[in-house]
């Protein structure tokens, strides 16, 4: 479904991503791991069009999406959440998701209808799915960190994506909250058929959840393979996992 080949991006001479490869198959969960500064977030920015690569190709459903603007990439079916919570702080939870749903329904140019009556059912369903149903009326800026991270995912779901990219979905969460997100990601795959790509520092979560793991270091892809193969890869052990992890 997604095929990233030999991607490269530098900022003012600093090579953030030098040679990234990633493929995500339909219905699979692919994890991207690597130490801080390995270029994971930059890779996600590149895929979703927020920044343009210097070299390399990104194909989604056999279509070249390099140099498309972010809104066009989103309309093709790729949604994302952000590492640092990035929602609409002055709108309430319900409106946060509704904006995404309205955008997907191509209704954002409607000037005169009353938005309060639109996209209600679908928005409510999404909030139920992620477990924010009882907090629909809260202004998003006042939510707890964990809830805001979940709202991140809910907003991304508003676009009804085929491919969902999650940038550290459980960063800063308590173990209970992490478990909830883990279950949610499983359900997104099994019930909605969404293909997931995520990056995460929590190795336990990565190895229990992912079908495929891609390891990045210094902007390069070391390997992408099944979890057990990655676990036993000598270079990965030496470079990243360390002895205590295995």
């Amino acid at each position: 479904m997604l095929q990233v080949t030999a991607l490269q991006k530098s900022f003012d001479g600093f090579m953030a991503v030098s040679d990234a490869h990633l493929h995500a198959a339909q219905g699979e969960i692919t994890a991207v791991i690597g130490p801080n500064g390995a270029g994971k977030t930059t890779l996600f920015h590149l895929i979703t069009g927020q920044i343009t690569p210097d070299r390399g190709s990104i194909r989604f459903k056999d279509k070249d999406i390099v140099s498309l603007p972010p809104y066009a990439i989103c309309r093709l079916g790729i949604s994302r959440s952000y590492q640092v919570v990035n929602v609409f702080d002055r709108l309430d939870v319900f409106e946060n998701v509704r904006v995404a749903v309205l955008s997907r329904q191509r209704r954002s140019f409607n000037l005169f209808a009353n938005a309060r009556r639109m996209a209600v059912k679908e928005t409510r369903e999404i909030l139920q799915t992620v477990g924010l149903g009882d907090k629909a009326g809260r202004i998003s800026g006042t939510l707890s960190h964990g809830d805001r991270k979940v709202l991140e995912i809910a907003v991304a779901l508003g676009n009804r994506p085929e491919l969902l990219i999650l940038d550290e979905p459980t960063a800063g969460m308590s173990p209970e909250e992490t478990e909830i997100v883990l279950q949610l990601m499983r359900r997104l795959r099994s019930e909605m058929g969404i293909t997931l790509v995520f990056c995460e520092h929590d190795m336990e979560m990565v190895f229990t959840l992912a079908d495929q793991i891609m390891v990045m270091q210094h902007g390069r892809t070391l390997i992408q393979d099944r979890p057990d193969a990655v676990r036993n890869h000598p270079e990965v052990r030496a470079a990243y996992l360390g002895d205590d992890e295995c």
Partner: protein
Amino acid sequence: MTQSRFQALVIPAVLLLALAFLPQFGTRFYIYLVSLILIQGLLATSLNLLLGFGGMYQFHHAVFYGTGAYATALVLTKTGSPAWVAFAAAPLAGGILSLLIGVVCVRLSKLYFGMLQISLGSLVWTIVYRWYNFTGGDDGIHGIPVPDAISSGVGAYYFTLAVTVVSLFILYRIIRSPFGMTFQAVRDNPVRCEAIGVNVRVHQLIGMVIAGAFAGIAGSLFVTVEGSVFPELMFWTLSLEILIMCLLGGWFTFFGPMLGAAVIVSLQTFVGIYTEYWTMVLGIVLMMLILLLPQGVLGFFMERWIKISRSEEN
């Protein structure tokens, strides 16, 4: 909740009724003053669509107001067209100029957007200021033949009131529409908006055209009330004044700018009687505003109101 809803309906209704009967008991002076407040309030509200609901630093909004006023004035004086053409020309001219300036500016980020807009707006002002045989230059145009029905003080007042109320209603609907909601999302987070499939620049451009058109309407109302136009209508100091109206009234509220206009225009008029240093008073008001009421007057009361109704619920 029902009580606050009741209040939200009753307060505007009473206000509207009072405004409708004002000519019965008000003097000419007050009728004129309220007309000016309505016009500048509509102008400030149109600016606030961009400022408070779109997060766009539209620093030179008066240009579209002046353009609307000149459009109406020029059609009335230079052509034999019926009056409605002159009044339709105002939003059209404001909207088109908005589109032109918007296409150039909208790709820039916040502050640079505002800066470039000031330059382009000043360019328009210079043209109007210098082009004697078309715009009348710095003399402006006087004795504009406004139709008889709306040329008297009371007639102009009712026309202004009706157009302002209808315009505010439309603007309110726009803010509540899917577009308006998306526009507010753009204000809060343009990057995320792109990521959820919203073409931010096109939305900002549409917002600018709408705001410019309604500023143009306000300009045509000024022609109705005053019967003349002059380049000061699009000078940058006026842009600053309406910016202050928005901040003073509360730029995250819909009716804040109208309230701000009422305060500023009244101050200007009454302080102006006693001293010519009225801008000093404006400066003091502005300083107090920044220090004491960062949310604006209406924003402050709304916040208190919400707090009170919350505590009553609990």
